[in-house]
């Protein structure tokens, strides 16, 4: 198991190098003169030259790359042009909001998609199977920002069930004392049930939006892999030995069918992290996605670059965790490693 993990860790290194090279090239591809850009629109010629030598832009590309990597290693993502604040601090403060939203969305999507996929496979050709297919195709066709707006219209404007789509917690409540940065967990830790309810009602709609968006691949994969497992020899043997349906499906088939579903989680995370940006904009969610979008609009590149880098590193780490998890639940992978 340990050797498997270390082998997988080695595979992360070229990915991270690629990510860093691409984000570096993106900063250098900025239109026009980056020094003039970072010096601001009102800068004089001397000021621009000063910025150029301060940023090391007069040095060869490879030296610049060296500086870039050392800065990153020190956790320095540069400063935002509009606020002057270091990007790294801002991203660290906003990351829990995005993480809470993404994980909650994934939780919703798994808790709907997996039972749906299983039922569709067990009752193949029934109405539930057709529902599953429609949901899967509709899920990938719905633009995530559009789903979000529809939910807001129905549940906020028409029914009045949910609070206004403005941030993580109602303005009348103060956020719970920070422990994990997840409002749901923090409010439970501080025993503040009122706060939990407030945070949960804000989280529900954006979470549901993300959930609907990522339903499709999980449901489709669960159904396909469940069908394959149900047709296999060991399920036939289990049935022939007289085990009841529930035991066969849950204990035998389900556990084996989950393996391919875990591998698709990688793709699902790529969807989720991207869709996160759009959902954060719709619900004015104070996460790193809306930070990047605000910066994009004011042509402030440092936060965007920090955001892209953070997302990429997170995604690489998530893929690593998924692979290790796969090794944990499937002994065959462990043996090969």
């Amino acid at each position, binding site marked *: 198991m340990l050797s498997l993990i270390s082998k997988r860790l080695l595979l992360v290194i070229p990915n991270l190098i690629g990510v860093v090279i691409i984000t570096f090239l993106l900063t250098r591809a*900025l239109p026009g003169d980056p020094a003039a850009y970072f010096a601001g629109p009102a800068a004089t010629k001397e000021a621009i030259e000063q910025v150029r030598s301060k940023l090391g832009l007069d040095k060869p590309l490879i030296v610049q790359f060296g500086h870039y990597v050392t800065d990153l290693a020190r956790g320095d993502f540069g400063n935002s042009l509009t606020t002057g604040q270091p990007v790294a601090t801002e991203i660290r403060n906003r990351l829990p909001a995005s993480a809470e939203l993404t994980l909650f969305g994934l939780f919703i999507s798994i808790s709907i998609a997996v039972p749906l996929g299983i039922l569709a496979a067990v009752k193949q050709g029934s109405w539930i199977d057709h529902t599953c297919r429609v949901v899967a195709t509709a899920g990938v066709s719905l633009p*995530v920002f559009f789903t979000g*707006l529809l939910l807001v219209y129905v549940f906020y404007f028409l029914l009045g069930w949910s609070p206004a789509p403005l941030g993580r917690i109602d303005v009348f409540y103060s956020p719970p004392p920070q422990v994990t940065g997840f409002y749901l967990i923090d409010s439970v830790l501080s025993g503040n049930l009122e706060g939990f309810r407030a945070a949960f009602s804000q989280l529900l709609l954006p979470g549901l939006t993300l959930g609907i968006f990522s339903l499709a691949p999980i449901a489709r994969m669960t159904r396909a892999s469940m069908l394959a497992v149900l047709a296999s020899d060991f399920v036939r043997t289990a049935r022939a030995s007289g085990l009841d349906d529930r035991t066969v499906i849950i204990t035998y088939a389900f556990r084996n069918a989950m393996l391919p579903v875990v591998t698709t989680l990688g793709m699902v995370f790529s969807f989720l992290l*991207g869709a996160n*940006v759009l959902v954060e904009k719709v619900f004015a969610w104070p996460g790193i996605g809306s930070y990047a979008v605000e910066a994009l609009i004011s042509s402030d590149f440092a936060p965007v670059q920090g955001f892209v880098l953070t997302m990429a590193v997170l995604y690489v780490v998530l893929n690593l965790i998924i692979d290790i998890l796969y090794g944990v639940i499937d002994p065959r992978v462990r043996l090969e490693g």
Partner: protein
Amino acid sequence: MTDTAIRAAAPKAESNSLLRHARYVVSENPVTGLAFGLFTLIALCALIGPYIVPHDPLASDTAATLQAPSWKHWFGTDQLGRDIFSRVVVATRLDLIIALSSVALVFAMGGFAGIAAGFFGGWTDRIVGRISDTIMAFPLFVLAMGIVAALGNTVTNIVLATAIINFPLYVRVARAEANVRRDAGFVQAARLSGNGDFRILLMHILPNIMPIMMVQISLTMGYAILNAAGLSFIGLGVRPPTPEWGIMVAEGAGNIISGEWWIALFPGAALMLAVFCFNLLGDGLRDLVDPQRRT
């Protein structure tokens, strides 16, 4: 029967069986027929839409702002009194052009890189593989945001970014298909008759994997439309007042909480129908071309 008769009969039988197969696929799955109908509608909107819409999509009318759908304005009007129906129809062309050009671009780049990787193997394969792995290391929409932010906020760069994030998908398909054919009989025959590598690649391998690549194109069209609309929703690429579905949804987003649903709903629904149509078409085409992968 003479030689010429046989030669004439063979292609006819083949096209007959293809037609029959197509009819079978459509009748087996009526949804595919629906998708073809939708596609025709979308294509019509893109081709002649701007000439048949009842109102000028850019003309504002301060006397008729934020009107609900009515006989005069089928989809209502927006904050500036512009007719939403006209804007939705006119936007079709721009959205399709963005999606089509990005798909064409990635087909050229990814398709060629993939074929070369599968055919030559070795270093070509390793370099192409490394490039697509690096792209895949990013959440794709986030990478597209970064590319457009860095290269400049234009429609051309949206096309480029959408092409780049689809690159690994095309490479994977083209590489696998070229790889199984690299030592096929017809390739060896072509080589024996003195054809160079590139000639074999372009004249013999490429036509053979075209059908599968066409399926890939139709499957990624929907994704390309979604991606481009998502980028313009967050304010990248297309600038107002140009009618485009993503930006129109963004313009209507603020009005949702005050109850003016029609501004965002109609462009959003158009977007959804277009994506839905291309996804269904892709599935239908796949059934036609590659019956084994039918779901």
